[in-house]
């Protein structure tokens, strides 16, 4: 009989739904593949820039400015006679740096807070979540503006600000995931067996919320890239002399009509990488969907 009982509404045929992915679930989807490819491409560009760039990074060259793509300069040269391809390559580092710092700060603080909140039902959990709510009241850009005023405009400072503003997102998603895990029988059993809370957190909770966190990280990564561009536009982001796609875009706007490629190239790079991370996140979510259902 146990066989017959089965899982309620588990079978595809039983629910009348099309077998998209099927109950096997973990099938690679287009978003995941495409997003993963773009993300990988950004990483490859960044790594490549450490071993090879067409010209010295950010160097003003004795050449004509505003060149359109040609054999010498594959993506042309900018107003300050710098090679655009070189900047795009080195800029990929900044893009990754931006995301890693912002997501890193948010995840390193947010995930433990979320787990703490989930595992401490009493005042501690309440306090964490209320603090979270207060932090949530400071939008990312506001924090970034305030931080830039405090510590000066730099990529790192801006991204730490974005990261701090993103903490609540990670704390929330971790908490909700962790709450689910805490209700599972094996965690209840582990607690009954007297396992230490830390042990439970590391052994059971963390691995189970990892998927959620990775999806959130991917989405936050994309948001951080956009935020960097916006801050560069406000003059609060990456300073001159450092390659950044946002900065390139900002610098190109005064010649948007006379040299549109200088805006289009970094603009496309930003849009593509944001798209890549978003797709990757979406794809990952779909891929993990069987576990995420009901959250």
């Amino acid at each position, binding site marked *: 009989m146990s066989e017959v009982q089965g899982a309620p509404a588990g079978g595809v045929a039983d629910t*009348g739904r*099309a*077998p998209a992915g099927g109950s096997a679930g973990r099938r690679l989807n287009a978003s995941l593949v495409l997003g993963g490819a773009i993300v990988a491409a950004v990483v490859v560009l960044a790594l490549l820039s450490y071993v090879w760039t067409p010209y010295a990074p950010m160097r003003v060259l004795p050449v004509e400015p505003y060149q359109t793509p040609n054999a010498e300069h594959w993506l042309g040269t900018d107003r300050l006679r710098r090679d655009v391809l070189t900047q795009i390559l080195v800029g990929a580092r900044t893009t990754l740096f931006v995301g890693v710092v912002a997501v890193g700060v948010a995840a390193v603080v947010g995930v433990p807070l979320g787990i703490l909140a989930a595992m401490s039902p009493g005042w501690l959990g309440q306090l964490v979540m209320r603090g979270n709510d207060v932090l949530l009241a400071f939008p990312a850009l506001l924090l970034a503006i305030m931080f830039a005023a405090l510590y000066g405009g730099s990529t790192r400072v801006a991204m730490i600000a974005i990261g701090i503003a993103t903490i609540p997102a990670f704390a929330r998603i971790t908490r909700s995931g962790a709450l689910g895990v805490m209700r599972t029988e094996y965690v209840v059993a582990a607690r009954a067996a007297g396992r230490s809370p830390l042990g439970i957190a590391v052994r059971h909770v963390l691995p189970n919320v990892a998927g959620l966190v990775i999806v959130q990280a991917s989405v936050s990564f994309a948001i951080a890239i956009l935020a960097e561009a916006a801050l560069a536009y406000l003059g609060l982001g990456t300073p001159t002399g450092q390659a950044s796609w946002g900065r390139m875009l900002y610098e190109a706007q005064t010649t948007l009509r006379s040299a549109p490629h200088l805006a289009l190239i970094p603009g496309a790079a930003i849009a593509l990488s944001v798209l890549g991370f978003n797709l990757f996140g979406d794809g990952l979510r779909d891929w993990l969907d069987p576990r995420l259902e009901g959250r």
Partner: protein
Amino acid sequence: MSDTAGRTVLAVEGLDVGAGHTPLLHDVSFSIARGERVGLIGESGSGKSLTALAVMGLLGEGLHARGDVRLSGRTPATRNLLEVGEAEMARLRGDAVSMVFQEPMTALNPTMRVGAQVAEVMRIHGTRDRAGARARAVELLDQVGLPDVAHLARSYPHELSGGQRQRVVLAIALANDPALLICDEPTTALDVTVQATVLDLVVRGVQERDAAMLFITHDLAVVATVCERVLVMYGGRVVEAGPVEQVFADPRHRYTQGLIGASDLTGEQGRRQRAALPTIPGTVPAAGRFPSGCVFRSRCAHETAECATQPGWTPRGAGRVEGPGRAPGGDTQDEGAAGYACFHPAGDAA
């Protein structure tokens, strides 16, 4: 059709359902007469619910059905429901045919008062005006045995227990006095204590309306109490059909035999010991992964080379049919269309 057509409410013939190139239902045929209660049993993934949804025209996107489904409710069955289009189907659903689903906890709109949800089905089909529908809704809620209905009608689903919610669903299903009621495991999700009450309400509701009922379940005991006739499905096919007593007492198909062996129809006494019961070995394959020929052969102890071909329909009591036979087809219109599709039927002197 046959002489019984006058009393036939639902006639399904050669129903095929597939998703893309994956076949999910094969050649399903059966009929239900007015006042008749037919059980549809089988494991999860055997195609029971899919059959019901195909009849309701509620197949999910990406699923397509072929075959012939006819319903004679208020109007005679002149058209194949698979071809009439959404607008016409919508007119039939909730009116001539209605359905009770398995999961009462989620079957009701959480943001709408239950009375309104009951009344809505009458408003949709224009059977009553606004006030009339509201009054009738309260009446119906009362009929399905809910307490303090005036107050309860103004409640939201989350304020009700599972059993109460399923009663509401039943009230919705019965509101327009359907000719056919489809119940998809209506009591599976309920506490054992309320199962019997709800079942009773279902049967009473159907009987009062002299309606036909298709009752999907995997609980053979329920079928035994509720239904007169039973269809056994496996792998998207009807593998055996017949009067309940006959099929249960003397199952022919090896799958039916396994099912009955795995359950215990001796009642509560037996249920407690179900861990000791024999089970059908193996698991139900994923959709589209059933073997060719006899769909059950991958789990059947009696499999022979012959089983690689599709067994034909053998009317009960008739001799063994050789070779890939025709599906029961119109024969099932006949009340006596009891039979099975197996080369090595149980109870035969094999």
